[in-house]
């Protein structure tokens, strides 16, 4: 609960911090409505639409309404998928407004003790420290390998968890050992005629839990003629912090990353997670109030490229033979890759060039799957509604392989497959892992 005093502080900060021009830029045409998953799934409730949320933010700034519980709820239920941005003819930066609003609410609200402890542990204690991420994922590995997992599943102990968390436990990837996670490369040569020198943004979760996917990414880059540098000083991108109203921590992480990458002489900085990439290309906005850092952030963001974009740019799919056993595959867009990084055709081009497979476009592949960072845990009910809808569309393609381009989406797809009882018949896979498979 937010107290009245907190509400007053929040309202004051809205007046001071929200970008009024951006709020006014929304001319309320409603073109965003049909693309908003929460608007549709809530039964066309304007309060769960982008236009409605912007109107509320403006009304708080104007003093027409107080930032009450309903207001907070509406902002919480937003996935942050930003599907409203590419369709907005006026070019409203909804994502920026949302992030600022969430930051104001969060910074002025006293969370309950357990929530405070969890937030502090996750945002300050864990994600910014790659060694602790390794330990954490290492523990998961111990759990998976030691027999505890088998025991936990058999005893039904997992039944104590909320349903989707219990299912989530089943779909987590087999994680690497501590030793494997510590022993990461810092420099790799091109394996064909060198066309670019690139830097690789390895990510915190991607370089631990999804290490195999990072390995595939680097292998593809090498085959595509890229020399790769992987600076050790890089850290978590800060997306999780930024989306959860921890802007200051996000800024610190951004500065570390900019510094880590700026003197490498790389043509591009490659990412393989749409969620991270989208946050990285927004660093200049995050650091907009700091002229020196802003300039450095612009130079940084101009080099960010998703793995599929660079592969298409260097004609990887034309140079390297890609082939797989006959199967139908489909692609689920990563919202942030599509809506923020504007990468939509490159992954499809790559998938369509694999010999032997039939690529089947999914209806509304551009609609959020409900993963949305930690949304599927904190807003599990709405997330599962989104996922069920997604699985109906996925099944309609008759695909046996659902390809994604972001770890969160991948886990969500696997969760969907498990929930539908389709494990063994259908699989979820990151695009680079599928491409690596096709190279063999």
């Amino acid at each position, binding site marked *: 609960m937010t107290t009245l005093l907190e509400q007053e502080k929040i309202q004051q900060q809205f007046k001071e911090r929200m970008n009024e*021009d951006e709020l006014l830029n929304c001319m*309320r045409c*409603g073109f965003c409505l049909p693309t908003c998953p929460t608007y549709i799934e809530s039964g*066309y409730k*304007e*309060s769960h*639409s982008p236009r409605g949320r912007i109107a509320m933010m403006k009304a708080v700034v104007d003093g027409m309404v107080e930032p*009450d519980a309903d207001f907070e709820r509406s902002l919480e239920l937003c996935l942050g998928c930003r599907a409203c941005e590419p369709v907005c*003819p006026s070019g409203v930066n909804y994502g920026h407004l949302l992030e600022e609003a969430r930051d104001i609410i969060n910074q002025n609200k006293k969370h309950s003790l357990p929530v405070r402890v969890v937030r502090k542990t996750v945002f300050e204690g864990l994600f910014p420290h790659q060694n602790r991420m390794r330990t954490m994922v290492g523990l998961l590995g111990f759990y998976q390998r030691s027999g505890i997992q088998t025991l936990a599943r058999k005893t039904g102990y997992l039944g104590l968890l909320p349903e989707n968390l219990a299912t989530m436990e089943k779909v987590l990837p087999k994680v690497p050992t501590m030793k494997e996670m510590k022993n990461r490369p810092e420099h790799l040569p091109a394996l064909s005629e060198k066309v670019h020198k690139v830097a690789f943004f390895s990510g915190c979760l991607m370089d631990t839990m999804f290490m195999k996917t990072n390995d595939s990414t680097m292998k593809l880059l090498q085959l595509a003629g890229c020399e790769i540098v992987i600076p050790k000083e890089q850290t978590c991108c800060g997306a999780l912090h930024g989306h959860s109203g921890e802007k200051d921590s996000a800024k610190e992480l951004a500065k570390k990353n900019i510094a880590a990458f700026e003197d490498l002489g790389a043509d591009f900085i490659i990412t393989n997670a749409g969620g991270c990439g989208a946050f990285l290309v927004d660093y200049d906005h995050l650091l907009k109030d700091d002229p020196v850092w802003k300039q450095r952030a612009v130079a940084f963001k101009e080099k960010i490229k998703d793995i599929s974009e660079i592969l298409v740019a260097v004609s990887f799919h034309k140079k390297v033979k890609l082939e797989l056993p006959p199967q139908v595959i489909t692609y689920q867009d990563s919202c942030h890759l599509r809506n923020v990084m504007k990468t939509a055709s490159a992954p499809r081009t790559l998938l369509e060039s694999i010999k032997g497979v039939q690529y089947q476009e999914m209806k509304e592949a551009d609609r959020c799957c409900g993963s949305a960072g930690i949304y599927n845990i904190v807003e599990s009910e709405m997330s599962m509604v989104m996922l069920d809808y997604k699985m109906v569309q996925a099944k309609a393609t008759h695909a046996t392989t659902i390809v994604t381009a972001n770890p969160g989406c991948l886990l969500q797809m696997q969760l969907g497959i498990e929930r539908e009882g389709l494990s063994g018949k259908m699989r979820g896979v990151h695009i680079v892992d599928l491409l690596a498979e096709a190279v063999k």
Partner: protein
Amino acid sequence: MLSNEVKDKLISIVTKENFDDSKIERLVYSYDATPNFQSMPDAVVSPRNTEEVSEILKICNQYGVPIVPRGSGTNLCAGTCPTEGGVVLLFKHMNKILEIDEENLTITVQPGVITLDLINAIEEKGLFYPPDPSSMKISTIGGNINENSGGLRGLKYGVTRDYVIGLEAVLPNGDIIRTGGKLAKDVAGYDLTRLFVGSEGTLCVITEATLKLIPMPETRKTMLALYQDLSAAARSVSKIIANKIIPTTLEFLDQATLKVVEDYAQIGLPTDVQAVLLIEQDGPAEVVDRDIKKIAEVCKQENAVSIQIAATEEEAMALRTARRAALSAIARLAPTTILEDATVPRSEIANMVKAINEITEKYQLTICTFGHAGDGNLHPTCATDARNHEEMERVEKAFAEIFEKAIELGGTITGEHGVGAMKAPYLEWKLKKEGIAAMMGIKQAFDPNNIMNPGKVFAKDSKKRVVMTR
């Protein structure tokens, strides 16, 4: 504020779940797509069927509570802004397609159906519903009927009015009536169907509609004609029609509009020319080819610098989609966009374009002009800032002059956006006192207690002001 008595009665009709009077829920139904209009309703109510609508109206009529029926809130005349509070009616439960009748070529729908969903459903069966307002991806058919919406295909196929052949409507006293039907001919009494279409929710609540469909044209072709001279583009419009060709679409976009639309859509629109005509023809292939060729000739005679024909349907679709985004794209230029809807006889379109440019020049404003030139319907849109009072005064004067010019040329103050609250003060300019009195008589006959969308169409007093209406 609703009294507890009214509130309890409304809840007993629709259940608690479909009644909301929380501050946030009221706020998000306090506006539509019209700039500078916002006013909180007292409650938001979502009936599930016609009977519930009837019960709600009886209560509101008894207690004098204003009723504002609302689709998706995309109208541009403040038609659904609850300027006098009251109850906003939503149709989220009444959103079913009830029947597609392929023998009579009709579709029967509830008001909450999204226009594009309706179009998709009938196009699957090779049928065609021409009205295509720019907001059709989200606008509802109930909203379209109440506003008598137009669209890009109006030139050849007409507007919503031309396709509504039957209605079910609830009157303010709760009576449920049916008008028209699946009939090609029907002269049984007054044509209430036509009266209700475009009545902006001021006479009744429409709860069901039967719409006329036509066979899908076999082919269509889309072209752009580029001009370095605005008047030449405008003259081409009248000349094409004078040559006895009626294209499906004949749209005009000036350079300022082209630039913002291209900025948004990025489809390679020409931004180095003064104006563009977007022209489309449909029908049997040989007719379409012949017409497009003839139109191209006319445009060249009128000094078009280039003619481009869309090579694929995707390309044509991209052009249409870009055109539909024009109004909102202009919002990129400035915080406030104020658009007008003046319409003149087609033959006067060149004069109107010329007048708009002179007025823009005179008042030193940024006005982008686009619109359905073939219908004589232009949308001069001013990119401004509502916070800049000095500039708003100039906008005010400029639009008053544009209105005056339109009426002088034999035109009207609104071609397709409606009167609503925004243009209510100027209705008299077009209708004169006697015209208003005649319409007022109709209003009083249907809605003696003035609960149906009060403050719309009829102004409390006729003002001289065009933009700053409050």
